[in-house]
């Protein structure tokens, strides 16, 4: 049984993958099968989300019972999760109370993290020169500086046409070329990963 189950999993995954792929190119039967399989996958994804939330609660329940120094945060999470589930269950996900929770807690916390992100990035750029003292680090920092100065008007000087045009050239020529190169690499890597899964070499489904 231990040997049969992984093979069955692999066969189901490979056949489903091939059918979904063919559905993109051939209409008719393959398109219908693709539609059915994707519908099943969406239902499974919803259940997976429920399992994920249950898992999150379990992780923090264990942390709370371990009585570590940060277990108070786990208690806050569990209480918040419980309240949100009850409120959203009673008023609906777009109900007034659920939206109030979202706008009062979720949005400000996420915006605060975005603000921290800006500070973290500035600090990291300042630290970069000591961590990687190489010529291309200097080039990276000079480019960042030129793009920043070319984007916003400067105190007393206003907008400097030379910096603005250099910034425009950097953004339109080397940056676009580099980004396209990286994207081509990512695309080829994604195709290779997909093919390995279709061939049954990579089995991220317990196969």
């Amino acid at each position, binding site marked *: 049984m*231990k040997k049969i189950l*992984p093979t069955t999993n692999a066969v189901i995954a490979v056949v489903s993958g091939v059918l979904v*792929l063919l559905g*993109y*190119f051939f209409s008719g039967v393959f398109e219908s099968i693709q539609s059915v399989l*994707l519908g099943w*996958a969406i239902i*499974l*994804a*919803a259940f*997976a*989300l*429920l*399992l*994920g*939330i249950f*898992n*999150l609660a*379990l*992780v923090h329940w*264990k942390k709370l019972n371990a009585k*570590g120094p*940060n277990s108070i*945060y786990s208690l806050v999470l569990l209480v918040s999760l419980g309240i949100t589930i009850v409120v959203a269950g009673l008023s609906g996900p777009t109900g007034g109370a659920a939206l109030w929770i979202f706008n009062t807690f*979720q949005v400000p*916390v*996420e915006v605060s*993290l*975005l603000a*921290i*992100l800006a500070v*973290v*990035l500035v*600090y*990291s750029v300042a630290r970069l020169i000591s961590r990687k003292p190489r010529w291309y680090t200097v080039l*990276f920092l000079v480019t960042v500086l030129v793009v920043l100065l070319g984007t916003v008007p400067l105190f007393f000087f206003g907008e400097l046409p030379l910096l603005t045009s250099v910034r425009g050239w950097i953004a339109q020529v080397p940056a676009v070329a580099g*980004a396209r*190169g*990286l*994207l*081509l*690499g*990512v695309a*080829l*890597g*994604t*195709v*290779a*990963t*997909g*093919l*390995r899964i*279709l*061939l049954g*070499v*990579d089995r*991220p*489904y*317990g*196969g």
Partner: protein
Amino acid sequence: MEQVLSFINDYLPLAFILVCLGLTLFFIFYDRNQPRISLREIPAFRHFRREVDLAVEAGKRLHISLGRGSIFDLQGGAAFIGLTILDRCARAASNSDRPPVTTSGDGMLTVLSQDTLQSTYSSLAVEERYDPTNAHLTGLTPMAYAAGAMPTIHDEHINANFFAGHIGTEIALLTEASERSQSLSVAGTDSIHAQAVLYATADEPLLGEELYAAGAYLGSSLAHFASLRMQDILRWVLIAVILLGSVIKLLGIMP
């Protein structure tokens, strides 16, 4: 003429996939009896392998962050690489007191990471080491995911973090947490913006296709080497096509 162009437009992607498949299969069978190809040095993988060994010796953990990409779209590709890395780490650290911990920002990825851990331990006949809470969902939005993963990096005695999946610029918060807890951060993502951020913030950034080579570098099967060779060939073909297109446009042959 229009019909021919429409046919090419419809079936060119399928032809491309078939060419990729053909090349991969060719190299799998061709390389079977050949000496294994030598890969170019990528310091990130060398450092990570060393940290895996050190983590086992020091009784510390490895953290694999799978990001929040859904497996229903392109973003899932990077997350699947994260699952391959998780499998390698779980095998390497199977005799450690502290098994690897995984964080993800998508329910399906959480289930897949639990499944990967379970099947890896099962194949090593150490099923008792599997604990579903070692793979957990931390948050569903970008910032919620980062906020949920940061305490894992701080509190779980992490020796090295491997960020492999679809993660946006919020990855800077995770690499910063890694820096503060003095653990190594190796990071690769499919987001171009996040790759720029990684260059400045991660100890070992993986740019472009480097992330997708993780399977081959961390000791996987022949198929991983074959797909690397397929990618190399197609990269040169794409470069040739781009250069040819530029020359054709310069000469004014095509508008």
